């Protein structure tokens, strides 16, 4: 794969992070295309979540580069990375329990993000329509006035995905979006993901193989901070190295 191509949405090259000498991510490179759903799988401790942390700025890289649409992310602050169009969903549903579903989405609406801006922010028709629009996509249109803390686990996961969608990110990163969901909810989430990838790229970390097969365009298998294998689900599944360290168990 050529390293000079610039039509990737995300180009991660030679990324390394070391925690007191332990390299959680070690010389990692991968590329995500426009409109692609990329799933990262791998055994526990492979460094999957750390990769997302590095991309969204939560963890500082020791070396290497992360280019998003040609711009270097490694030196930006978290909120600047968000402003450039990268959205991140956390592993545990991370929503504001004390606010209503509506307010959760409203806070995520990309306007009035400075202190002064948030004082001047007006809940106008545009905001309301957008919130309702997103609420419908994430199956919560009837729960807008409910405190988010009262939602079911699956609904909380959807709400957090909705909070990302309303930011209209070009790159969406989801950390185990279906963990703890019922079978029916998983199906709905797979549908949801397939629907929302129009015009954006998605990176998903997931353990549920059925779910991965449902959504993945390409799969990256990580092991000990490195890429072990990459390609279509079919190819990865039959890769002897992958079977040995991950799928075989």
């Amino acid at each position, binding site marked *: 794969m050529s390293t000079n191509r610039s039509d990737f949405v995300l180009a991660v090259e030679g990324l390394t992070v070391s925690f007191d000498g332990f390299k959680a991510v070690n010389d990692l490179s991968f590329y995500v295309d426009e409109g692609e759903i990329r799933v990262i799988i791998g055994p526990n401790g492979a460094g999957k979540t750390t990769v997302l942390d590095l991309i*969204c700025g939560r963890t500082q890289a020791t070396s290497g580069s992360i280019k998003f649409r040609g711009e270097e992310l490694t030196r930006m602050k978290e909120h600047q990375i968000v402003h450039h169009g990268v959205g*991140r969903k956390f592993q545990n549903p991370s929503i504001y329990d004390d*606010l209503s579903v509506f307010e959760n989405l409203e*806070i995520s609406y990309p306007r009035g993000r400075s202190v002064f801006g948030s004082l001047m922010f007006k809940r106008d*028709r545009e905001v309301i*329509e957008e919130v309702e629009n997103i609420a419908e996509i994430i199956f919560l249109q009837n729960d*807008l*006035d409910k*405190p988010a803390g009262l939602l079911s686990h699956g609904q909380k996961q959807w709400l957090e995905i909705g909070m990302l969608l309303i930011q209209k990110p070009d790159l969406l990163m989801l950390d185990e979006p279906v963990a703890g969901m019922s079978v029916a909810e998983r199906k709905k989430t797979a549908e949801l993901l397939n629907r929302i990838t129009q015009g954006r790229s998605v990176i998903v970390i997931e353990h549920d193989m059925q779910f991965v097969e449902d959504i993945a365009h390409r799969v990256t298998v990580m092991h000990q901070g490195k890429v072990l294998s990459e390609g279509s689900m079919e190819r990865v599944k039959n890769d002897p190295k992958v079977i040995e360290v991950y799928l075989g168990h």
Partner: protein
Amino acid sequence: MQQRSNIRFMSRQEVLGYIMLAVILLAIIPLSLDVFRLNLIGKYLTYAFVALGLVLCWGYGGILSLGQGVFFGLGGYCMAMFLKLEASDPESTKIQSTPGIPDFMDWNQITELPWWWEPFRQLPFALSAIVLLPTLFAFIIGVAMFKRRVGGVYFAIITQAIAAIMTILIIGQQGYTGGVNGITDLRTLLGWDIRSDSAKVILYYVCSAALFICLLLSQFIRYKKLGRILVAMRDREDRVRFSGYDVANFKIFVFCLSAMFSAIGGAMFTLQVGFMSPSFVGIVPSIEMVIYCAVGGRLSLLGAVYGTLLVNWAKTIFSETFPELWLFAMGALFIAVVMAFPNGLASLFKRYIEPKLPAWYSGKTMVSKAPIIEKDSSMETAHANALGSEENIGSSKSLAKPETAVTVAPRTDEKLEGGVYVD
């Protein structure tokens, strides 16, 4: 759907709560107490500014500052410096070896007014300094701490250390600050005798009015998106950060605002009590102020005022009879509040008193909210929706205020319970 845009500035309960407080502060108290007691209440009210700042900063923003006395003191000292210079004209200080400088400077063999005292001869400068100096100081602390992501317990400890340092500094620089005695013997404000009975009554009203302005400003912030971001930040800081907000800026803002409120309180204190000393700056007063806020309910703007009045009133009664026991009582009170009712008096009011109040108090929406939302009558829907959205903020942050609370108890788990009560 467009009704949802009508988040209301205040709910019916809140409007009634503010009216109630206004009646108590502006009519009942002044009419029923003599000037001495009224002045005492006025002094308590100056602490309410600090408690109010803590509601925003700690209750909403989740930033516990144990050094609010620093800002209270800075505001108070700025006022005291102006008043002291006015009281130290050459005529009335002619027995000093250097007439025309404050008496404590003379006692400390200082023969010239320090350059940084000079501008405090001007009232406009002093007034701007009261507001700006502590805010600037808070800004510097805020930038240094929050930009480096210092928070939680570490922040609390650092603010406490700052309070200790400030006290040591003031006491140590006796010649410039009046040392442990503070700045005393303040007499007039632009020639107006602040020690007279009539002045005390007027200052009481000025203090109450200033408190109301701060209350309404806080209410405004609560009602804007900024208020909801504070709550969100308290609960899920990372989520707010990864929603594109620079979290540190919001923390700095709310910390500065609480410092500004404290400073205004401090200045009002100096005016009403007639002196300022390091005993209002240090660790103990700073923690006491946190207790006022906690007792009133750290999520309730009005609760902060009632909490302050109540604790101080108890303090006065108690320390008159058992002076040495007061500190223990205070400690016990704090533990009791934290263990038994973490959201303070406001949550007790909410749970036990409000359901017994007549229906007009809360308006129709109180009886049962859910069916009304479904109704088509646009007025009611608007109200219900507005309530719906406000409530949720309130559910943790502020619902529970005396006289103001909506129908719900302060936590979501209690919330259902609250609903059951009402229905």
